[in-house]
């Protein structure tokens, strides 16, 4: 059974249909990449999964449970975390307070402290800056914070929306290394990216999205060799 199953969803903004019937699945332990150009509907799909948007048709199943109608704030405690597009850290809170916010649904203080220590180990930069306001962090640091904050809920699956956006090549490599580590430590990953080359290099499987539809899917390595992908997304 797939961990996350998207079944034929259609999503509208008012009268405009952004997602035109999409199905895909993510199995436990996988890294799945969702790639596509600007406006293809990647963010819309992630928002639909975590309940910030609701689909007009279709359903979202997580570990066999239909979560389509569950409100957004109840999704995270099921074991799903979402690193939103553009980071969206809480600018007026400190790094530490942001991380605490990520553990909002957890009760055990000792366990939360343990997770914070784990996040600091993965992102030493965050520990150095724990009392700094998140709004004053650099873009790369904010991305680390957004990822650390999502990890604070101790998720089974983590959804990431363009984590490499606006980062220098060195930082992009660093972020992708961390995604691989997160995956190795047992968390399933659904990764939305415009950087198709990078995404395909760490993904197991991938789906290619065009104007609200999946146009191609398959093994990530195979897709990397696909001529149409090379042309459209890899710039070769």
């Amino acid at each position, binding site marked *: 059974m797939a961990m996350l199953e998207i079944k034929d969803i259609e999503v509208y903004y008012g009268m405009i249909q952004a997602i035109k019937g999409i199905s895909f699945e993510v199995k436990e332990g996988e890294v799945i990449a969702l790639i596509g150009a600007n406006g293809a509907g990647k963010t819309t799909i992630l928002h639909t999964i*975590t*309940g*910030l948007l609701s689909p007009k048709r279709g359903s979202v199943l997580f570990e066999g449970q239909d979560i389509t109608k569950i*409100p*957004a*704030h*109840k*999704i*995270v*405690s099921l074991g799903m*975390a*979402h690193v*939103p597009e553009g980071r*969206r*850290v*809480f*600018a*007026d*809170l400190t790094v530490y*307070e942001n991380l*605490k*916010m*990520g553990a*909002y*649904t957890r009760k055990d203080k000792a366990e939360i402290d343990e997770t914070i220590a784990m996040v600091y180990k993965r992102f030493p930069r965050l520990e150095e800056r724990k009392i700094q306001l998140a*709004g004053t962090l650099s873009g790369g640091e904010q991305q680390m914070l957004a990822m650390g*904050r999502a990890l604070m*809920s101790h998720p089974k699956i983590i959804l990431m929306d363009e984590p490499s956006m606006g980062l220098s090549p060195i930082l992009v490599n660093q972020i992708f290394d961390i995604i691989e580590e997160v995956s190795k430590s047992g968390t399933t990953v659904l990764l939305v990216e415009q950087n198709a080359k990078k995404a395909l290099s760490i993904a197991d499987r991938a789906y290619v999205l065009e104007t609200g539809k999946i146009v191609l899917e398959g093994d990530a390595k195979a897709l990397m060799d696909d001529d149409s992908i090379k042309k459209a997304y890899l710039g070769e």
Partner: protein
Amino acid sequence: MSFISYLINGISLGSVYAIIALGYTMVYGIAKMLNFAHGDVIMIGAYVVMASITRAGLPPFAAILVSIVFCTVLGVVIETVAYRPLLNAASSLAVLITAIGVSYLLQNIALLIFGANTISFASVVSVPALVLAGGALTITGETIVTIICCIVIMTALMVFIKKSKAGQAMLAVSEDKGAAQLMGINVNGTIALTFAIGSALAAVAGVLLCSAYPTLTPYTGAMPGIKAFVAAVFGGIGSIPGALIGGILLGVIEIFGKAYISSQMADAIVFGVLIVILLVKPAGILGKNIQEKV
């Protein structure tokens, strides 16, 4: 001595404005809406205290508790029934108009139940006045209680927001509702809590105001409501310390204006100073200029 006495009176009146302004500023900061019915909750609170004492025969302290509970529930009901359905409405004008409607509704309900006559409100404060400087300076019990209440409320609120989980959730919701939901925060619940706190404070403000100025009509809340809104804007709407500074400043300007310039002109002076401050600092004294970080 009269200068000091005016100053203390100004701080006391300003403390009431500050307590009311908190309700405006918190709701604005978290729900991004102006709750223009807030002033009328003060009036309702005062009527509940009055009725609990004169009609139900409760002791003042119990009457105040009843009023706080009543206003808290009222605030949450107003939020869920009138505002929540509009929270995602395309136009924030719709919310504003609804708020004005709620304000008239509350005034007319009070009119219906208690009539239009001015009721004299017996002070519920039993603290004796403080006589200083050999009788040259008298500070009334109401003044003392008002200032102490303001200090206690401000401190408690700041600790609550900084230290409690619900307080942190408020900060998160005020910054980014979507991201807050992704953390597992119930945004609607947090907004309702904000209304509850603001309305409870309005009840307290109603008691303090009517104890100091012992008359009560269905329109009692309107003017202090507007002035407290001005105070919130003064200090920087959305900022809690801003509400305190704005409130005190407004109270002091109003009392000094009345004492030294003209009692008819006092309100005009208050609003004139507001205009000047906003020309110099458009976001208010402690307000942040809104910047989008890209």
